[in-house]
């Protein structure tokens, strides 16, 4: 949906009324004008890493450390969630995002006042039902939308793109007030790892273009075009080999990593895998594009028991 009034016009009007710009940050003014919310919560820390035996407890504790769901979701917000719902395996095989986590996140968003929560992906329904994600979303009061039609996507210009100057992404994500990316930590035969940024390949229309041109760069440039409100990475189990479909070697870090910077989250997830963040093409390129920070020494990271 194209806004009918830009932020700058709104600010001019506000100045005429003798106001400051503060209300823009609360979202009230944007909502008043029918615009999707444009402000973002900036947590007091960059990354929260919660550890423990319960995926749900880890998830909730990590987001709490960033300020809590009420900071990310305002009353009336439309929320879009992108899990990784591939395959029909149970969570212990680390192929898909833990359905219990997805359910918990949806419940919290609705509790914080979201008007709707939509989970999206372009995977097949059979997989999504088979691994429990579909039922988890519905139980929590959300809706799952399978992105299987061109009409569900909209083309956007990618200002920081070179290989990817334009691409089509899911309208539900582009127009959402809050976008929450919920990947799982996995090995990937093509890109070495799949975390937050690679997970965006579930919301774009033409994945084949990425494979045909420069996969790592396209992933990074696509990430530059999507504003993440929140990232919640499932590292309760992690697949170390034979990803993304497995079967492979699974470890149990029993962690959830949360933040607002997809590059930082992915960099932190590398601790469970061979290599450093800069060894992964899309992490390095996204860092170079200013999408986020891959040097964890420059970030405020809080790791704790949930």
């Amino acid at each position, binding site marked *: *949906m*194209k*806004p009918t009034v*830009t*932020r*700058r016009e709104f600010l001019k009007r506000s100045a005429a*009324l*003798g*106001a*400051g*710009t*503060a*209300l*823009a*940050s*609360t979202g*009230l*003014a944007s*909502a*008043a004008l029918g615009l*999707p919310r*444009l*402000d*973002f919560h*900036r947590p007091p820390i960059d990354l929260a890493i919660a550890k423990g035996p319960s995926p749900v407890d880890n998830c909730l504790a990590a987001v709490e450390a960033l300020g809590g769901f009420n900071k990310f979701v305002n*009353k009336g917000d439309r929320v879009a969630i992108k899990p990784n719902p591939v395959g*029909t*395996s149970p969570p212990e095989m680390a192929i898909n995002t833990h359905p219990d986590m997805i359910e918990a996140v949806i419940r919290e968003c609705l509790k914080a006042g979201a*008007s709707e929560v939509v989970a999206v992906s372009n995977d097949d329904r059979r997989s999504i039902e088979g691994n429990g994600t579909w039922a988890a979303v519905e139980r929590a009061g959300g809706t799952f939308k399978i992105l299987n039609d061109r009409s569900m996507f*909209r083309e*956007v*210009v*990618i*200002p*920081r793109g*070179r290989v990817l*100057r334009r691409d089509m*992404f899911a309208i539900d994500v*582009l*127009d959402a007030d809050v976008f929450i990316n919920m990947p799982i930590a996995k090995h990937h*035969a093509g890109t*070495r790892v799949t975390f937050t940024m690679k997970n965006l390949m579930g919301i774009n229309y033409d994945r084949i273009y990425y494979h045909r041109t*420069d996969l790592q760069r396209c992933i990074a440039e696509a990430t*530059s*075009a*999507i*504003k993440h409100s929140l990232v919640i990475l499932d590292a309760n189990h992690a697949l*170390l*080999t*034979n990803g993304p*479909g*497995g*079967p*492979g*070697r699974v470890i149990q870090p029993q962690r959830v990593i949360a933040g607002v910077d997809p590059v930082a989250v992915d960099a932190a997830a590398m601790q469970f895998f*061979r*290599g450093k963040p800069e060894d992964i*093409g899309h992490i390095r390129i996204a860092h*170079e594009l*200013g999408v986020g920070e891959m040097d964890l020494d420059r970030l405020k990271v809080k790791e704790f028991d949930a």
Partner: protein
Amino acid sequence: MTLDLRGLGAGLVCAAAVLVAAGPAAASGEFDLATRLAMLGDYEGSLAEYEMFLRDHGRHELAPLAALAAGNLHAEVREDYEAAARRFDQVVAAYSSSPWAPEAARRRGEVAEALEDWRTAGEAFDEALELAAQQGNTRSADWINEVTAHAGDAFYHLGDHDRVLRTYRKVIDSDPPAAVAATALYRMAETYEATERPEEAARAYTQILETCPGGSREVAVGVMGKRDLIDRHVSFDWTPYDLYGEAAQLMEQRSYSEALQKCTAAEASCRNPRMLECLDFAKIYLETTLSGDYSTGYRRVEAYVEKYPRPQLAEEVGTTLDHWSQIVEAEVESKRNPEDAAALASLGTLYLRAGSLEAAVRTLETARDLDPERPGTRRMLGYAYNYAGRQADAAREFEVFLAANPDDTNALNMVGYAYMGQEQYEEAITYFRRYVELAPDEANAHDSLGEGLYRAGRLEEAAREYEKAVSLDPSFYNSYFFLGQIHREIGNKQKSAEAYERFLELIPDGPQADEARAALQDLAGQQL
């Protein structure tokens, strides 16, 4: 949500105090806002935010990126190339040491290209290369190759061949990775050829084989194709290179023993240290794949990297280290838990991906016998049997997998081809039809069904499926090849020729290219 707008004015006044103060957090917020507005399709708003960011935070570390983004928006959305050029020039001038300066120079070049201002384009691309070299050549080989190509093309348009050659020579002299050096030398050689300097061309081509034979497979193949030219002007011993090329083809066909023989013979006749470096790695790879001893193989590759810290075959070495380390860890895991079917399945899959077929089949069979109900194992064993040429066994395993996963289109395709391998075409068609039902918009599904129908002699139906495949994906070259065959068989020469020509446009050097060319010649002969 509704809001009483009558109270809005008062509310605004009351809330006047805070936010959007100067400072890094606020600056980042404006930058994020620009991204968000672009997501919403408000490009003017996004551009305005980037411009405001630059005005208010010109010294912020993201300022060059904001300028780059603003330049892109000027170009992509407004088609205001002058404004775009100004922004790109600003990044280069004001932020020359930032990592985005080379990219901005490159974009400047592209804008000039769009306006056919070849002088500016060439100089901008040259500048991009220079900036990248100053920053330690941290750009990827692909980036350097592309920019070099654009620079060369721009000067070529001007007819300034000396400048073309100087551009390539600068890149070569900057000690780039082997992949870049090979491509730059090749383009130099092509330029010499185009300007009728064949002796210099021949020397440039041979320099590739002498200094960076492993830099680029595509370039090496190109050089081999220049043999006649080279032989006319340079005395060159082709023996080790011919043998290496033959080894590479055998490796693609998974004929590892024969490939190893070729490599050993090449080594015996080679004096070139760069070529010996490539042969060294090839032998480690082949010996390990044949023996299945990945622990030793991994140690050998580690030693190789110590000996050659900037290997020509950098990508292959990196991938091999990554892959073999996984195998070694999986082997340790399996030894610890020999009854763990999941661990064995994982190891078998790794062997399969590494090309150790016997080890893969053996390990996956053991995994299956320990836990026959595990569908993933049956699927991987199906692949292993397929690669080993045991089509009946492959079909059986995939069918077990499909019983648990009836809508897995990949498995349906594999079963279909397993039956094709046994010339049981009607059975194959049944599976391909199901594939098409589940994935009607997938070109590959129609292509597979087309092939089943073709082999079963149902030509008209096959043609319809292939037509559907190319309508879904106009670059699906396999379908064009078969359309060429089918139309030839039913006597439609015009359509046959069109299909073969389209196939060759898409894949002029592929394995069936010679066959397609021969068919076209035959068709042309028939028309005379």
